[in-house]
């Protein structure tokens, strides 16, 4: 049920994406960072073509007004719902427990990372993910403890399908800020939808209501460990919406390069 809903959203996104995304690049181009200030200002230096000089462009955002609405909604959602709920939850569950629960869910998502490694030809990563799963599921008490990292120094590979798509040169499409779920690119939304098929959590439960509660619990648990980050972003930013969009974009592009 949940899966078909996601597929529906994604197919809509793709239909909308394919047509305007290509034009959006040009339409929104002039608004974005131009490089010519370099030439006016100082002699050209090839080393200045780095990320911090604005040659990277920005993610097209043709639906900015709608995205800003959702951003405002999420802002309220964070301060009125998520933060109070997390605070209550934090008093009930010590941090160590919350970290363990996050580890448990992360361990279950191993197939997503392993498949993404494999599709990108990162054979070592694939092997490490399998090994981590075996070690953590047994010695790490069903994945609550990340012994593979602590004892064997094998870190989790932060790979997903969207990065795999990026690895093969598929463009990001455009930026979309969804209610509750937060920032996505067309590409990452597509990847995320694909992941619903290889996410084992979804196969454990037949009832979508129960699945939804498990997913929500994972969401709140993760959020409870990151309270304060959004406030920091908001405090440092002149325009939090643009700051988040840019931060998300830089972070994702960087992940694909790795």
């Amino acid at each position, binding site marked *: 049920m949940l899966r078909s809903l996601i597929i529906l959203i994604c197919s809509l996104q793709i239909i909308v994406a394919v047509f305007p995304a290509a034009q959006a690049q040009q339409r929104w181009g002039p608004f974005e960072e131009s490089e010519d200030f370099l030439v006016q200002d100082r002699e050209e230096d090839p080393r200045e073509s780095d990320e911090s000089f604005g040659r990277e462009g920005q993610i097209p955002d043709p639906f900015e007004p709608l995205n800003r609405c959702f951003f405002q909604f999420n802002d309220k959602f964070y301060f009125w719902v998520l933060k109070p709920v997390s605070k209550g939850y934090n008093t009930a569950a010590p*941090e160590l427990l919350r970290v363990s629960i996050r580890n448990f869910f992360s361990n279950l998502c191993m197939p997503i990372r392993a498949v993404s490694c494999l599709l990108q030809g990162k054979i070592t990563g694939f092997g490490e993910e399998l090994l981590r799963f075996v070690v953590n599921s047994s010695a790490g008490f069903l994945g609550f403890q990340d012994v593979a990292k602590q004892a064997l120094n094998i870190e989790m590979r932060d790979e997903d399908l969207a990065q795999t798509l990026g690895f093969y040169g598929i463009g990001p499409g455009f930026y979309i800020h969804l209610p509750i779920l937060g920032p996505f690119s067309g590409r990452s939304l597509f990847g995320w939808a694909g992941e619903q098929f290889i996410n084992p959590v979804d196969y454990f439960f037949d009832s979508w209501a129960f699945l939804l509660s498990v997913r929500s619990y994972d969401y709140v648990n993760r959020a409870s460990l990151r309270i304060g980050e959004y406030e920091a972003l908001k405090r*440092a930013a002149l325009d939090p919406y643009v700051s988040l969009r*840019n931060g998300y974009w830089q972070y994702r592009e960087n992940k694909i390069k790795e």
Partner: protein
Amino acid sequence: MYAGASPLPGSKSSSRPLGVGFYLNKEVCMAPRSLFGILFFLVIFISVPVLAGGPTGQIRETSDKIIAIVSDPDLKAPARAEEKRQMIRQAVDERFDWEEMCRRTLGRHWAKRTQEEKKEFRDLFAKLLERTYLEKVEGYAGEKVLYEGEDIDGRYAVVKVKIITQKKTEIPVHYKTIKNGNQWLVYDIFVNGVSLINNYRAQFNSIIVRSSYEDLVDKLKFKVSED
């Protein structure tokens, strides 16, 4: 934690947990009793100029200086808070190339500014970064800083650092520096692969394109004046 200015400071893990300043205090208090003490003193003083040569050495020097300030028990008193901030500000100023930072954050809008506007912007932007930065630094709780190497390319260099928080979270931080005389000055900080300057440029550009440069200045003024 990840947004805004990075927590620049940190100790050097293993043998020198609080930086040079800590040892100096200790040595002064105890007076060099033994030959070992004197030798230790000499080693510290000799090693500083050697380290100071490269970009990593210079970043490390500044980090240690700031750590020493925030960990100094004498400066913990609330009455000396402003003095402490001033000291941190000075240490940061010495290591940051504000002009270069501003040029990069305004991008193509920089060349259109008059000298006065440039100076005003420089002051406001420095205040904005300092505000975020000072708060992070003052919340310093023994995070470790591991220096993981540097890439030098002509007059540009990247210093790679990993900050390990008390919760054992690793935050990769890259300092982009540019050489000015024999000083390597920071012009951008990447936290978790996100460039601070790039992030501000996106915001500033969006505001200027949407309304005007004057509006940006007003927003900056408002931002630095709020608590």
